[in-house]
Each structure stands twice: as C-alpha cells, then as structure tokens.
C-alpha cells in the first residue's frame, strides 16, 4: 500500500497525445468524485444541515458519549494486543528460517478473508448462551456475548493482520546482520530488540498502528453481531449511528457519522505523513549508497 508520488517515467518521448491525457484524467476524477468526494462532502452537509446546535446536541448526547467511550476502549485493548502479536509474529517469521513459514503467513491474513459477520458469528457459537462454552460461562456468571468482552474480541479478530503484515516484509528486507552483530558483541536478546530492531521498524510499526486503529474504531459487522445493541452498555459509535439511522434521526445520525469520518481523515493524514517520511528515508539511503 506504499505509494510514492514521483512523476514516473512519463518522459515526452513516450507520452500520450494531450487529448487522451485529458480524457483519462477526466474519467479518473469523475469516477472518484461520484464514489469518494461526493459521499465525503455529503456526510458533513447532512450533519450540519439542521444547524450547529443540533450537531452539538447529537454528539454530546449521553448515549453518544457512552458509545464513544466504548469505541475508544475496544481500540485501546485491540491495538496493543495486535502490536504485541505483530511484532512477535514478524520476529519469528523474518529473523528465522523454518518449515511451514508461508503457511503461517497465509494464516495471519485469514481474518481479512473472513466476512465480518462470520467473525461475529463464530464468537456467538463459542461463547453465546447456546454456544460451546455458554453453560460453563453462565454457571460462573461471566458474560461475553452481548457484553463488552465480546465486542473487544470481535474487534481484535478483524484487526489481527494489520500490524503483522506491515512488519513481516519490512523485517524480512532488513535481514538479521545488525541483530547478529549486537548479539556477538554481547548484548542480550531484549537489549538487541530495543536498541536495534525497534528503531529500525518504528515507522512501519506506526503505519500498522494507524491502519489497525482506523479499522478497530470503525468495525461494524462483527461488532454488530456480538453486541446486542444495548444502549449505554454495548453500543459502539458505528452501532450508535445505525440505531439513530433506524430511528430516522438523520441529523444526529450524520453528526455521529461525521465524527467517525473526521477520525478516518486524521488516520489518512497520519498515513500520508508516515509514507512521505519513509519515502524520504529510502531516498536518503539510496543516495547515500550511490556516493
């Protein structure tokens, strides 16, 4: 997903006639306008249509605030867990050669291929009242489905691959020489990780954290299945948006939706910043090598 914006190989000798260029540019921009820019503008237009007062009332409604809190809480649990998982998986996969590695990489991608609805369903089958562990959990007074733990679990499931798949190719490209040198010089494993590996991967890690956070806060399908939609208790912000929408409170719906949209825009800005930074670093590295 890394993209750079260098002008590319469009030298004058191999470029299209101007009218084709203009046509392609127009087609691309019209397509993006219809499917991206108009929806983006519509969120804010609908949110503010009934005035700022209605907007502020909607986002400071106690249920909305509860939903924001739960959304932040589940992201605050899911993201660190997947950071630990991602770093650990990338260390095992990138720093060692072992049997079945490509199989393991495929398994890590699995949650991306599974419909969010199925992600929710499997936890209901496991922990729900009729589920495998249901009777035992009920006996011990533990509630997972239609409660906060289920929401956190579903969020963790859908965001498992984000950080691992950023770090694995990065650490594979960096190789093991620097860590091996540190070990040979007598550093402990932890010291090597903190002083050598972590500084090398910090931008890739940050990139993964941004993508993971965006998805964790926005997940709808999986969370919807395990939530039970109990206002003030198991409602995340995306679920709150759905409830308001089904009650035809459109101004309030889009007010809450605009918060999520702002959050998405912040994540995109962070992502673009990190990409520009790593691109510059790569260019410095390349020019350094050529000297």
């Amino acid at each position: 997903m890394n993209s750079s914006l260098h002008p590319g190989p469009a030298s004058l000798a191999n470029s299209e006639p101007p009218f084709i260029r203009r046509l392609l540019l127009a087609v691309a921009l019209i397509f993006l306008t219809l499917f991206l820019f108009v929806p983006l503008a519509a969120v804010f237009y609908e949110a503010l249509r009934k005035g700022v007062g209605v907007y502020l009332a909607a986002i400071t409604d106690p249920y909305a605030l509860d939903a924001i809190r739960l959304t932040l809480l589940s992201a605050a649990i899911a993201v660190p867990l997947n950071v630990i998982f991602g770093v650990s998986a990338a260390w095992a996969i990138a720093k060692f050669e072992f049997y079945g590695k490509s199989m393991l990489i495929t398994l890590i991608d699995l949650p991306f291929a599974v419909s969010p609805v199925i992600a929710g369903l499997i936890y209901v089958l496991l922990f729900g009242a009729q589920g495998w562990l249901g009777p035992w959990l009920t006996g011990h007074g533990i509630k997972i489905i239609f409660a906060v733990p289920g929401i956190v679990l579903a969020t963790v499931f859908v965001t498992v691959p984000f950080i691992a798949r950023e770090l694995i190719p990065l650490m594979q490209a960096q190789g093991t020489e620097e860590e091996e040198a540190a070990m040979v010089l007598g550093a402990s494993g932890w010291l090597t990780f903190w002083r050598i590996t972590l500084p090398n991967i910090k931008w890739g890690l940050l990139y993964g954290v941004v993508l993971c956070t965006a998805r964790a806060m926005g997940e709808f399908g999986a969370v919807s299945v395990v939530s039970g939609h109990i206002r003030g208790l198991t409602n995340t912000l995306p679920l709150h948006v759905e409830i308001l929408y089904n009650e035809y409170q459109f101004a309030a719906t889009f007010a809450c939706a605009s918060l999520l949209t702002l959050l998405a825009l912040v994540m995109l800005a962070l992502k673009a910043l990190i990409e520009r930074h790593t691109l510059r670093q790569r260019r410095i590295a390349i020019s350094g090598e050529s000297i």
Partner: protein
Amino acid sequence: MIFRFRQPSVLPGFGLTLGFTLGYLGLIVLIPLAMAFTQAFHLSWDQFWRTVTAPRVLASYRLTFGAAFLAATINTGFGFIVAWVLVRYPFPGKRLVDALVDLPFALPTAVAGITLAAIYSSNGWIGHALEPLGMKIAFTPLGVIVALVFISLPFVVRTVQPVLEDLEAEVEEAAASLGADRWQIFWRVLFPAIRPALLTGFTLAFARAIGEYGSVIFIAGNLPMVSEITPLLIVSKLEQYDYSGAAAVSVVMLVISFLLLLLINLLQRWSRIQRGWETVI
C-alpha cells in the same frame, strides 16, 4: 540429510515468539473459526445441503457474488485509470487525491452505507439527478453494486500503482525507437507487466466485496430473494436462533474465502516473479 524444523541462528526468541504467535492465532482465529464447521456438522448432510441450496439462499449467493464480481470489474477498469493518472500525469491537488483514495479503508462501513444511501436515494444529490432517467439505485440491487464499488475501490489502485511506478522508461523508449506506436507499446509492453497486479487487485476487491455487510445493508433494501446479501442472511438466521443454519451458510462462504485467499497468494507470487523482487502490498 537430517531434517531440521528450523535453520540454526544466533538470535534468541524463536520459541517464545513463534509459540506466542501460534497460541494467539489459535485462540483468536483458528479455534473460533473451527466452531462454524463443528456447528454446521450438527446437521446431517441432507439438512446441510438443503440449507445451503434453499431458494432464498441461492438468490443471496447470486446477488452477493454477482454484485461483487461487477463491482470488482468496475474497479479494475476505473482503478487502473486512476492509478495511471496518479503515477503519470501531473495535476493540481494530486497529493490530496492520492491520499483520499484510501478513504474506503479508513471510513467505517456503516458511515459509508448511510451516506451512499442518502446521496443515491431519490431525494439525494445523485439519485435525484438519475430519477428522470428512470434509474433507481438506492434500495435496489444496483445499490448493492454502488456500495461494493465504494468499499473495494482502493484495492486495484493500490496494487497497480507501485507496479506502474517501477516500470522503466527505457523499455518504452526502446519500443518507441523500434517503431512501435503508443497503442502497441501499451498492449505489448506495459499491459503484460501490469496484468498480474490487475488480477491481484481484482481478486482482493472481489474477496473483500463478497463478505461486506455494513455498507450494503443500508442501501440494499434487503428484500429476500431480491436485494438480500448472504452475510445479511447469516445475521437473520442467527437472530432467529437458527445457529446451525447460520453456520452452514457461513461454511460455504468460508470455503470460498479460503480458496480466494490461496488464489491471491498464488497471484502475488506470480506478480513478484514477473517483477523480479519482493513487493509490499
């Protein structure tokens, strides 16, 4: 030769990190996923087959896979043009447009759903303009396609873009100096190099689109047999406490998703071989 599970290394932590990785994947992903299969096996083979081939279920497959295929196809065509324009042509605001292409990845699907429903419904900005032409999009199967185009829009752009950036200008110049015209260069030189990335992008978009739920349910109308997608059918079976039925339909979807995941891996390997180096997607 002695079989070794892993090559020797001076670095520590292999057992710890691999153990944690496998344990985490097992607890969070694999054991729960296995539940869908065990629950589905509560049904006899006959019951399973009747559940997954009931007319309403078959109609939902047709809609889900048909709309996902069309959306992925639309995105392959337009995504290629967007990637081409972003890599090759200068225009004002390019950096902003490039960053916004990822919006569907960052925007919660529910927000996408309500917004698309609002603008493509008969009193929305775009729906209003299309109504005199006799086109209704929101609350029809066309709405499903619109939602799926939105959520799978970045895949083709983001897989094709790095390949286009890496193409050497020399190859095109060589073709031009040998007398090829622009069209021949495109079809004979550029397109074969981009083809694996296009296919990968198409498959990623398709795989994402068949599982999509959040954005579709707001714009589809959700009429059984007409505009009901398979993930919604799973949810409604679950809401009627038909756990085995929900699991059976999920198993069909899961098997298809696994096959697509394998296909994506093969395509990416093919793409890497063509490009001759490892790529980050």
